[in-house]
């Protein structure tokens, strides 16, 4: 039974997949949908065309960026629930800068991104300093800062930044479009032989590069080491001469900057203007992605891809004329995530594995004994 661990892990994963499919099938059957076709749309349809795949990757990009930010904060001992607010403030700053600085051209893109990161960093800094100076729970402060950011953004969208074209009209509030030279280049403009006609932008390259940079920072530099030590045990870190409160604030600044960048990339790459719902809730789903990716910047990449795949697939159900109400899509998505997280916990529990191994060994021995007799 040397390979028991491998067999066990695969077994648990298979079981989890079967369980998910089972429950989901039941739900779909009750709704009267074609079960097999639904699964095909969720898991395979995104791969059927380049357009679909680029849709997946465009969702994956902000999820990766937010996920990285959450990892940094979590590893440093602070739970950042404020990704949504940091995204909003980041993209708001980026839009204001893009529209009013008068700087255009390719050089403006990194500048706008830096401004967006700074915006998110400021929005992360406040909960960080509140926690380190006054012990205010970050769960409370980041959520409150989300509310502030949401309302502030809604105000800016409707009053100072409102597109004159929709002013007084019935349309949804939005800002003026950014200059075309400020948009993130499409992949097909950078790499040859990539099919044209999709919104596939280069943000994913930025996200992957950032994941690598953050990984190197957290695991290969003394500052990252100290942040991780502070996160793993603040008492031991303080004992070791590490200024826990300073690194906590730094972690929130970095985390906020990542989320701010996520918002900015979303604007520069996809929307090209400020809209009512341009964060797509990624500030929250990024938390799930981070946990799912083992709270490791590199683990976030596949986690974000998988998450994006399911969300794209689910959102494509209606186009494929599958009679599943859009609310049920969220149910399916939630169900899958829950089972996956549960499976991860089960795999990580050595006691349970040991127990199963003994039971299995006993059963096998019994069978052999029975055969002998």
């Amino acid at each position: 039974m040397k390979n028991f661990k491998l067999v066990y892990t695969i077994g648990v994963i298979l079981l989890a997949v079967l369980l998910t499919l089972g429950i989901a099938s039941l739900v779909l059957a009750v709704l009267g949908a074609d079960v097999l076709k639904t699964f095909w749309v969720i898991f395979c349809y995104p791969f059927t065309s380049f357009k679909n795949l680029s849709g997946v990757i465009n969702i994956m990009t902000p999820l990766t960026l937010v996920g990285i930010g959450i990892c940094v904060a979590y590893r440093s001992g602070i739970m950042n629930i404020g990704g949504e607010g940091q995204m909003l403030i980041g993209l708001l700053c980026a839009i204001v800068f893009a529209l009013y600085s008068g700087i255009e051209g390719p050089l403006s893109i990194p500048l706008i991104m830096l401004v967006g990161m700074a915006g998110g960093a400021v929005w992360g800094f406040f909960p960080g300093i509140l926690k380190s100076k006054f012990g205010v729970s970050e769960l409370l402060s980041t959520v409150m800062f989300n509310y502030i950011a949401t309302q502030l953004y809604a105000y800016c969208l409707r009053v100072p930044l409102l597109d004159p074209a929709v002013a007084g009209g019935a349309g949804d509030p939005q800002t003026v479009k950014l200059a075309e030279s400020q948009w993130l280049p499409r992949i097909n403009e950078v790499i040859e032989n990539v099919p044209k006609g999709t919104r596939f932008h280069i943000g994913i390259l930025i996200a992957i590069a950032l994941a690598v940079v953050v990984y190197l920072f957290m695991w290969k530099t003394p500052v990252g080491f100290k942040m991780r030590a502070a996160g793993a045990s603040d008492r031991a870190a303080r004992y070791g001469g590490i200024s826990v409160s300073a690194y906590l604030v730094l972690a929130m600044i970095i985390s906020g900057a990542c989320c701010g960048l996520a918002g900015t990339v979303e604007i520069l790459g996809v929307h090209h203007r400020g809209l009512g719902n341009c964060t797509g809730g990624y500030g929250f789903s990024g938390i799930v992605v981070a946990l799912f990716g083992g709270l490791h910047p590199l683990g976030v990449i596949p986690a974000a891809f998988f998450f994006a795949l399911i969300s794209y697939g689910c959102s494509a159900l209606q186009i494929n004329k599958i009679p599943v109400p859009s609310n049920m899509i969220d149910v399916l998505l939630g169900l899958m995530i829950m089972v996956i997280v549960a499976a991860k916990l089960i795999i990580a529990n050595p006691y349970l594995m040991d127990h199963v191994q003994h039971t299995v060994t006993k059963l096998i021995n019994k069978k052999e004994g029975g055969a002998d007799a």
Partner: protein
Amino acid sequence: MANPITSLRIEHITKRFPGIVACSDISLSVGKGEVLALVGENGAGKTTLMNILMGLYTPDEGKIYINNKEVVFKSPSDAFACGIGMVHQQYMLVPNLTVTENVALGMRQMMDGRDGDTTLDKFKRAVKLDLASVRRHIVAISEHYGLSVDPDAYIWQLSVGEQQRVELVKTLCFGAKFLILDEPTSALTPQETDELIELLRRMSHELSIIFISHKLAEVKALSNKVAILRGGKLVFRGNTADHSAADIAALMTGHQVYLPVNQSSKAPGKPMLEVHDLFVRGDRGNMALNKLNLTVRAGEIVGLAGVSGNGQRELAEALTGLRAIESGEVSLDGVSLVGRTPKQIIAQGMGYVPEERNIEGIVPSMSIRENLVLKDIGKPPYSTVGVISNARISANAEKMREEFDIRCSGVNVAAGSLSGGNIQKVILAREISRGPKFLIAVYPIRGLDLGAAEFIHKQLLALRDSGVGILLISEELEEVINLSDRIAVIFKGQIQRTLGRGEATQRKLGMMMAGVKEI
């Protein structure tokens, strides 16, 4: 209520955990009125075995017999029902409830019906908390066994020794006929220990007792039988009276143990740590240190004896910059430490072996090799131009593992997964290898087995001989007397008196720790 337990027998108990066999084929028996001492090093399987007896774990193999009848414990309540009661090392009491309320918390009988109860009686019992009857029960038990306990006192008002008596009364109130005590004396003063042993000896006329201990003097004083576990196996079983403490120690560790004694006559050097009129606040805002004065010279071990809670923790934290100094002066090698950050004080040459080694001395989830460079990660050779050198960190870890006999499956495993003794070796390795000018060691061998304690004491003495000043904070008088050049007794945040090595006896120190100034 359960019948009296006249005999308890366990046969061929085996319990496996992932990767290890915690108990392997252990058989023991305890008869009526017997006291069995269960000794062994940390990780020998004592606690696992007792947890099996308590129904917390089910054994993989083996059987338990009570009064020659096989019993199976699926949960602690099954063990309770058979009359087995355990007093854990950490007391399970709610500080802001009274003794009576604490006992009532776990008491089943209040709810259970009696014969002849009407439904109304049962209902009344279920909704009304009958504290008066619990109180009567406590008084009866405490009179019967001569266990003085004030049923109306709040737990937070009681000393550690009194809290332990409450635990005993609580266990007895639940109907225990058989007591298991897990290191009952580890937090007690010498006087309290003597009282407890006397009390247990009286109780053993009516009850059977198993007690787990590291301290061989107690084993000799209290038990009639002794069982020694090593590496999950029972290596010895016999009558206590037939064997000397040294024999038992040798069986426990597998080799002869000589706890080292400070016999050096080398004169200490210049004053290294100087503390003048130090005032420091405790967690509750009280003055934990109240005009404390202390000097420790280079090449000298000063033992700070005292019952815990008299300002030891606050002193150690104030000296290392982890706690703010209210007023007073502290200097290390002539440089003032007041208002400095922990980082600056570490740079000044202060080493610190903290009280809570598992959560403060190491980052439990980080690897051994990372913990060994916790204080030096930002400096060469472990990092240059802002990049960590994993090769040098690993090389350092392998060297420390060798030198300090850190027993682990590899230096990449999480430090928190090590045993207490090995964690302490990691901490000591880090602190000593940094070449400190001064070392503060707080309860350095608390909870460690003899083998590890011997090693750590040798290291401390070697460090002293190399000219480092050491402040040894401890409650264990034997440790203090063995190692110290001078012994200071702390009481209520002040140094009661300082004695030379020759003057100090356990009795004298014990009385001074209790607040008696002149003897």
